[in-house]
């Protein structure tokens, strides 16, 4: 008797279900329906589930062996990151948020001003991460900011992940107030050393305990069991598992996952990215082994307009195929996509235009994600500073998300991650193999990896093409 296991993703647009047979290790089927968080989130789920049953009569409702669910509905998990120095604790705080699958909507450094606090209060934020100072280092700034947050009677949870020495005083500040706060390990305990594990764990815990309810997904959690993480975190976990392998099941080694969406482009890389040569010296904050960056100005629809402020008309045209004879009106075509976010290309020219947007999203997001080198001329010869990860030896680049997986030319689009002659100082991949998540299972496999890592790994190897 087949006992399907269901992996559910309450996405911003669609609620997706993947049914897997864990005994015979294959994907039975997938289905999707529009997400319905504003009314009852279960409506969308039920619809998707009905579709699944209709297309796969072999699935019997009573035989379902279990569920796991993730969510990025209702705007995903929105966070504010606060730190001291921009390149150090502010960056560490941002990386903790991103690594936990959140979107970082606000960032503050040094002493917060009244205006900044007002902005924080006025913005729709789910969790605040407060950092600042190494352990034993500056505690005056984080204490100042904690007082500001208390005085503003902040109503969302605050995670304190700063200088250990400031913890007692901050607890005194928050005591006897209604502020919900959590104290965890410093995100930058020593200079340039990154430690985001505890912060990430607490973010996930708050997400499960509180945010789910606020986002209207509680009903789903009651019916299906816990909604255990934000969707981007599930993708990052899947990528990590696929890279590292599990027990005797080998992984793919260093890899990259790209998800081009309507509003953002997410890039995940797994790997240390250490310098490949001896005359290179690392600069800046330590990089997370599993790194995620999110580009809010790179997307196919909502943020299409922003593209023109990133690339000139002239540069934009370079992204069209050589045999594309259409004289595209770039500004107009972008505006049309921003205004009509459900826009689906119908003609060949529209398709080509979408492809060019996707290539730009890919190219620019990689420029920002990868490390870069700078030459220093010393009396002992040329030396190099490396900031960020060296990803030149990455083996696989995997495309996921609606835009890529439905595009017949996805592999061609993803080739824009490659090393470029005009971007020599960027440590971009050197002709990696490209795979596409055609069945859209990555997030689901991240969920599955929490209970059945080996099966999730095998499925990924099978279904990424």
């Amino acid at each position: 008797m087949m006992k399907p296991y269901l992996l559910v993703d309450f996405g911003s647009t669609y609620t997706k279900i993947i049914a897997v047979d864990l005994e015979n290790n294959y994907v039975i089927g997938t289905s999707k329906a529009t997400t319905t968080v504003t009314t009852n989130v279960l409506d969308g789920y039920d619809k998707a589930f009905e579709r699944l049953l209709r297309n796969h009569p072999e699935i019997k409702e009573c035989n379902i062996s279990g569920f796991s669910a993730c969510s990025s509905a209702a705007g995903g998990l929105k966070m504010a990151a606060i730190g001291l120095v921009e390149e150090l604790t502010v960056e560490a705080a941002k990386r903790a948020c991103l690594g936990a699958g959140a979107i970082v909507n606000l960032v503050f450094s040094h002493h917060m001003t009244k205006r900044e606090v007002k902005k924080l209060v006025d913005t729709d934020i789910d969790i605040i991460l407060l950092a600042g100072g190494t352990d034993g280092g500056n505690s005056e700034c984080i204490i100042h900011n904690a007082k500001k947050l208390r005085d503003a009677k902040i109503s969302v949870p605050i995670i304190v992940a700063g200088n250990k020495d400031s913890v007692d005083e901050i607890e005194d500040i928050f005591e006897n107030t209604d502020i919900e706060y959590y104290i965890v390990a410093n995100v930058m305990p020593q200079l340039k050393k990154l430690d985001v594990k505890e912060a990430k764990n607490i973010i996930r815990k708050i997400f499960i305990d509180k945010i789910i309810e606020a986002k209207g997904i509680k009903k789903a959690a009651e019916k299906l069991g816990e909604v255990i993480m934000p969707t981007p975190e599930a993708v990052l976990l899947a990528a990590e598992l696929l890279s590292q392998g599990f027990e005797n099941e080998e992984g793919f080694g260093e890899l990259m996952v790209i998800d081009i969406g309507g509003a953002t482009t997410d890039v995940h890389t797994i790997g240390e990215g250490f310098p490949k040569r001896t005359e290179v010296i690392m600069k800046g904050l330590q990089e997370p082994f599993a790194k995620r960056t999110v580009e809010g100005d790179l997307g196919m629809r909502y943020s299409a307009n922003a593209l023109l402020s990133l690339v000139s008309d002239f540069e934009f045209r370079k992204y069209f195929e050589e045999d594309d004879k259409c004289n595209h009106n770039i500004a107009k075509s972008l505006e049309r996509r921003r205004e009509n976010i459900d826009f689906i290309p119908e003609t060949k020219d529209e398709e080509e235009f979408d492809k060019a947007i996707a290539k730009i999203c890919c190219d620019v997001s990689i420029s920002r994600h990868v490390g870069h080198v700078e030459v220093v001329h010393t009396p002992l010869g040329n030396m190099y500073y490396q900031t960020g990860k060296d990803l030149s030896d990455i083996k696989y680049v995997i495309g996921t998300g609606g835009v890529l997986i439905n595009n017949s030319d996805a592999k061609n689009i993803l080739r824009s991650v490659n090393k470029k002659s005009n971007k020599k100082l960027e440590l971009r991949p050197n002709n990696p193999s490209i795979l596409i998540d055609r069945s859209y299972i990555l997030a689901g496999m991240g969920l599955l990896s929490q209970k059945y890592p080996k099966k999730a790994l095998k499925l990924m190897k099978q279904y990424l093409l």
Partner: protein
Amino acid sequence: MKTVVIGVIGADVHAVGNKIIDYVLSENGYNVVNIGVLSSQEDFINAAIETNAKAILISSLYGHGEMDCRFMREQCEEAGLEKIKLYVGGNIVVGKQNFKDVEKRFKKMGFDRIYPPGVKIEEALENLKEDIGI
């Protein structure tokens, strides 16, 4: 425990003295934050802010230290580190120059302690105890 930031400024890769300074100061009860070679003024300053350092000890052996150190004090003030002690030592100027003149110039640039070539770190250690305590 008092924190000090040490490092080698500019396009200078001399690491041996830097390691010795790190060792001696750590052995003598300081929390040493060593940002290593090829460090910029911003690297020193950012490190000092986050770690709440009381002094910055800049090394330079390749002769261009005077250029690399220009406006260091002003940058510190700009970053809110008005009280921080600034030390510099090594071959900090081009060629052989009268040290008294060199010292005068660096004092004018806002450095608190300036050391000529060949000074033992123990001397700076005594000054450090005097200036910021242990």
